[in-house]
């Protein structure tokens, strides 16, 4: 059985619960192939200054992303204040407007605290969210796994909440599953379909499965694929882990017990 129900975030419906990044690939061809292998149909992109000289033979990352297949999710990576976030979000929207790509009216809000931890800065994040929502954006908010902050962001109109599993690119996985559980319970109380996505920190397939088994609606990752020894193979693993984790969550795991319960019948043993 396949997990076919997709993931609705704002006005977009994703066919896969895995959102993948476009950074750190050794080539654009490898990135394109990894996207295909992951099964994702939503990819994040960053906004940066265009090079005025030495442009790599005119190759642009968008030339390696099929607009029919993928929805673009522009991020505000590298921003440290609400003002920067809003500016970058608007530039991303402008670039996608009348570009042939979907994704102009949503954004992954990322407002960082410092360059060493790359952890989200909560006050700037909240301020930026308010401005972007007022400006008509559907905002997916990268944030810490603080349930009170997450609730506040939800109340301020975030289209999705995306708590970090662990620091960006760290590969530590979901460090505090109980925090994610609490976020899920509290944010889905009024609306069971409210999207909660683990963003950042996953290192391998089991990290993704674990996150999905907790009941999150999706996982967003980049480095875990792009930085793997065999990125193409890892991309496939991540796609499968997303699916299997979701299926297991929906299937409902057995409760944990301290002692054993026999699988074979007790009656009829020849030594009874």
């Amino acid at each position, binding site marked *: 059985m396949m997990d076919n129900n997709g993931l609705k975030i704002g006005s977009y419906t994703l066919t896969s619960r895995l959102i993948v*990044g*476009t*950074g*750190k*690939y050794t080539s654009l061809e490898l*990135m394109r192939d990894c996207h295909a292998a992951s099964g994702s149909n939503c990819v*994040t*992109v*960053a*906004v*940066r*200054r*265009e090079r*005025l000289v030495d*442009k790599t033979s*005119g190759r*642009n*990352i*968008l030339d390696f992303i099929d607009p029919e297949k993928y929805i*673009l999710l*522009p*991020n505000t*990576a590298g921003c440290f204040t609400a003002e920067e976030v809003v*500016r970058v979000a*608007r*530039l*991303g929207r*402008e*670039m996608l*407007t*009348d*570009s042939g790509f979907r994704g102009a009216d949503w954004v992954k809000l990322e407002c960082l605290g410092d360059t060493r931890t790359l952890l989200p800065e909560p006050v700037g994040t909240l301020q930026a969210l308010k401005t972007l929502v007022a400006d008509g954006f559907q905002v997916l908010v990268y944030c810490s796994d603080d349930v009170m902050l997450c609730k506040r962001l939800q109340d301020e109109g975030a289209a999705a909440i995306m708590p970090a599993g662990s620091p*960006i*690119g760290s590969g530590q996985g979901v460090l505090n599953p109980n925090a994610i559980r609490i976020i899920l319970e509290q944010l889905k109380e009024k609306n069971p379909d409210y999207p909660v996505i683990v963003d*950042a920190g996953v290192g391998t397939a089991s990290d993704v499965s674990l996150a999905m088994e907790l009941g999150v609606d999706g996982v*967003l*990752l*980049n*480095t875990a694929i792009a930085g793997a020894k065999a990125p193409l193979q890892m991309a496939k693993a991540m796609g499968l882990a997303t699916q299997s984790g979701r299926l297991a969550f929906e299937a409902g795991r057995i409760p944990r017990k301290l002692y054993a319960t026999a699988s074979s019948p007790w009656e009829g043993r020849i030594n009874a």
Partner: protein
Amino acid sequence: MLSHVFYGKINPMEVVVNGQIKQVVDGISVQELLDQFQIKPIRVAVERNREIVTRKKFSATRLTAGDQIEIVTFVGGG
């Protein structure tokens, strides 16, 4: 096309493009600036003094001395 005029010495002025001081011909349009750097308009967004210039207005928007221009594109990210 005015682009050939750009290479001449006719009324040059200074603007700041992506943080770099550039000499351009007086009254150059955003579209002509992009042409100069061989940048495809479809793949970029442009700010002039912190205000977005929409793609439709690239040709009609003319720069003045001291303008701060940002030309951005999408790159890989997570």
